[in-house]
């Protein structure tokens, strides 16, 4: 137990959290994908989103010395917890990386699929990859049969998605005149002794094909191809131009040989199994594009239960609030005092009267403390009462504007009964985290005031945080509304027990 937490227990202000399990024993991924890649930046988005669409939990990407903008493209995926990129400079030994991922990441996941950037896993039916893998409860390795897609009539690189542009596959690819189907493995790390490129050596030899039938685990060329349940589309050639360039490039594998040529007019079969996933892939590409370039915390899309929140929002908010209330002239990372305990919320709040704080309209928003917080979060002010467009709405009361000499306008709300709500009719950008900054002078005939913050999501109100204000007074607060990016269109602040509220500052911050 950390000293701070022990102190918190002594002071009785640690909320009753559920007991904590060791982090590494708390759930794990179902299916992860491993790929080793070099200079594949333009192809990453579709590939990642397609596999996210079929339900892949996490990607382990081994960067074999890319010199393109790979890391720029991967940034949102890395920051939100979708990919883990390992810099793996070994030349030419894909197998070393394949084994590295088993040894170092194998315990985090039930299955690891080895999928190159030109390969796409495609469930045959409308079920996610983890549902497909649940069909093989005893298998240690599932060998997929690859479908080799060819030019599909494209001499030059077409625009749009690879999976939409190339529809034709042929058993004569990659070697004309043969009909060899190459295997790719999905392995259960628990039962894997070592991994090659096209197959792995399992501990008990339980290798099956996708139909669930036992098959030889030593075959690179699969003897009994099966496309039941799950197939792998390999976009081997893409367009004629791209294939000629690929033939002259070294690969990451040791037994790289000059690729044989594939004639442009090779007879081919059309395959539409991937079609059902394309709308989901496009939707995910849109969603990833909408996310903030730089989130404030790691892992909001990490599909692991119980991953610690791991950001310093609460700490930074405590510094901003306490230093503002204490009247510090410059931002500091140190706290002037400990703000009020607000169990269950990320953020900080202090009562101005306790520290001789004089509220003035716009003072908090213009302070260096909030500016530092905005800079640190890379946050935008999505709505503020100073701009007041669209105007603040009130539920259960009436709204007055009271001019304060030289300083601006204070909005005063009188509630008819005991309490009511302020509604910010604005949510900012789609898919962001939000925080509320406020300076409110609350009058409450009977303390305390119960505060509930709620957001409107897809038309419905959804409460996010509730905490008390101990009684009448001026409250300076900075409260986070959610841990993961959301799309909201309004925020409601319910003050139960308040008769009047003077709004000196109120702003909605949105950040990644």
């Amino acid at each position, binding site marked *: 137990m950390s000293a701070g937490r022990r102190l918190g227990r002594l002071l009785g202000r640690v909320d009753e959290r559920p007991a904590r399990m*060791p*982090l590494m024993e708390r759930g794990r991924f179902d299916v992860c994908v491993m790929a080793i890649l070099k200079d594949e930046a333009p192809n990453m988005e579709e590939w990642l989103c397609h596999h996210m669409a079929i339900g892949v939990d996490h990607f382990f990407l081994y960067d074999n010395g890319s010199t393109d903008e790979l890391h720029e493209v991967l940034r949102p995926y890395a920051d939100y917890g979708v990919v883990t990129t390992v810099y793996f400079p070994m030349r030419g030994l894909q197998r*070393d990386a394949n*084994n590295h991922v*088993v040894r170092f990441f194998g*315990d985090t996941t039930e299955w690891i699929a080895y999928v190159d950037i030109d390969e796409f896993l495609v469930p045959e039916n409308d079920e996610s990859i983890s549902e497909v893998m649940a069909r093989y409860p005893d298998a240690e390795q599932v060998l997929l049969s690859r479908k080799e897609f060819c030019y599909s009539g494209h001499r030059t690189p077409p625009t749009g998605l690879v999976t939409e542009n190339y529809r034709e596959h042929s058993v004569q690819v990659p070697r004309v005149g043969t009909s060899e189907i190459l295997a790719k493995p999905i392995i259960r790390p628990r039962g894997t002794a070592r991994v090659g490129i096209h197959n792995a050596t399992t501990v008990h030899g339980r290798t099956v094909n996708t139909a669930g039938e036992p098959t030889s685990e030593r075959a690179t060329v699969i003897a009994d191809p099966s496309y039941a349940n799950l197939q792998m589309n390999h976009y081997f050639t893409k367009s004629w131009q791209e294939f000629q360039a690929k033939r002259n490039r070294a690969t990451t594998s040791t*037994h790289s040989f000059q690729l044989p040529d594939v004639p442009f007019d090779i007879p081919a079969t059309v395959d539409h199994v991937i079609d059902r996933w394309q709308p989901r892939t496009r939707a995910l590409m849109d969603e990833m594009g909408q996310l903030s370039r730089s989130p404030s915390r790691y892992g909001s899309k990490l599909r692991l239960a119980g991953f*610690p929140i791991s950001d310093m929002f609460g700490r930074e908010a405590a510094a901003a609030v306490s230093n503002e209330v204490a009247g510090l002239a410059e931002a500091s990372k140190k706290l002037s005092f400990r703000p009020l305990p607000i169990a269950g919320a990320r953020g900080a709040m202090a009562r101005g009267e306790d520290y001789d704080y004089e509220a003035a309209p716009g003072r908090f928003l213009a302070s260096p403390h909030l500016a530092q917080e905005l800079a640190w979060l890379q946050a935008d002010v999505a709505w503020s009462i100073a701009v007041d467009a669209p105007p603040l709405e009130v539920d259960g009361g009436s709204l007055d504007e009271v001019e304060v000499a030289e300083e601006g306008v204070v909005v005063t709300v009188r509630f008819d009964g005991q309490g009511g709500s302020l509604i910010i009719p604005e949510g900012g950008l789609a898919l962001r985290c939000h925080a509320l900054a406020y300076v409110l002078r609350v009058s409450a005939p009977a303390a305390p005031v119960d505060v509930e913050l709620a957001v409107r999501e897809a038309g419905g109100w959804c409460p996010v945080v509730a905490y008390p204000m101990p009684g009448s007074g001026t409250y300076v607060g900075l409260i986070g509304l959610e841990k993961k990016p959301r799309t909201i269109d309004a925020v409601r602040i319910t003050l139960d027990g308040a008769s009047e509220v003077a709004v000196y500052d109120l702003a909605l911050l949105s950040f990644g």
Partner: protein
Amino acid sequence: MTLRRRLSRAMNPSPGVPTVGSPAVDGAVGGQRKAPRKPPRKNWRSRPPNVTGRGALIDEPGLRLAIVCIVKNEADYLEEWLCFHFALGVDHVFLYDNGSTDGTFELLETYANHGLVTIVNWPLPGGQLGAYNHALRFFGPSVDWLAFVDVDEFIVPVKDDDIPTILARYPEAADLRMPRAEFGFSGHRTQPVGLVIEAYADIANTDGRDASKGPRVKTALQPSGISSVDIHSSTVADALPQLSDGSTVDAPRETVEPSELMEVVQVNHYYTRSWEEFEAKRFRGSATGRLPRPGLPFDLATIRVDTKAQRFAPQTRAMMERIHSLAPKPFLYGSQLGLSHFPVPNDLGRFAEFAIVNMSAGFEEAERGPAFRLKNHYPAVGFVGDLGTTEYEASPGCLSSSDHARALADHVRGEVCTTSEATEVVLESGSASLSLDVSAPGQRRRYALGFVISTDAPLRLSAQNKRHDGSTGASVSAELTTDSTWAGVLDLDERPHPVERVDVSFSGAGTTVRVLDLFLLSYG
């Protein structure tokens, strides 16, 4: 050990033996004389038995202690810091890179390729906490202990000689809260030459901390008992996973306070280093995304002088030399990885087969594939083929001087470093020996022995490394089972060593051995 590992052990008390067929030679067509132009592509692999017959790779033990660290543009300091810790028994470093642009990757290539460092790309600004918990979650199951320190922090044993000895004292500790010692400028205005651990010895109050609060701490933890980790602390799990019979799994749960550790271990924090370096560092963003750091006066009072780290300077230098003597781009990953086993593919043998077969097929130029299949008589890493089954007439130097040997060397990113003249060896009382000197004896390299030999009776060929420090490597031997001409390439060592010479000995029932070709191939 993780729950899953424990569960699996319980369910499979003895790790199962993989049910693969006979090693090495499945699918080989011995004695095929035709030389089709197209190389057959089915199943070239030969499986060395030293890696089959084992359990799951994730259960391979060996990584006792790893360090987790997040860096941005620390190339100047990384080398000493890494080597200090490797010299003191750290097995692996998980390095999260927060967007370095200063040659950190180039510097780390040797470390990464030899399996000492795993570099994770971590672009998130201020992502230190996320990185730490990522490491706890993703790498926790791989190692027994994780220590979370920065590049300016060195874990210094106070009375022991290495860090694992310290950890062994606390088997029940989940969280070892190591006290930190804060070092000041120690009189250096500019960056001194030499090691940081030698240049700075003055302890000073660099963080304005109240001395009565005790030192700041850094944590070393056993991941199986920890539920989350913070920059200076971690949270010991207060619930443990249950097995199906309702019993809970045991995990270390104790916290060892810094006051108990004062006489055992300290973390030397070289926060300022020299005045110039500190002034530059102050305005750089930190991994926690905070404000510029406050300045410090150069004449900061020295509280006391602490030279505990200095006794490890020779070890640190020796480790730096050791790393420098490794090939930056080895052929195989992980030669310094402390795991008991990491799969070793027999690529050397495969490429040797290409070379020997294509030579005996009479090809002038190397091919990436064998002209025909030749039975591999060597069960470990390498290849030995019986040229008597081909029509090839071996001549002196036929392999080492050919394009095929050059291609083999290229494939394994090595070079043919020593060749011996063709010679006849007389077997006196059944044995004889030769030796080959290595051309660059100070460098740590792996070596393979290539040979073409005619024998008049079954023969055993053995080879052994003689190392720089007088020790010897393991003896490897190949059985040449018939009177014939044999060609082969044998891997001499699993890991790179500073080899001085290689002794080759022959023993058998015959009288003479015609050594047509004998050479050493050095590779990383």
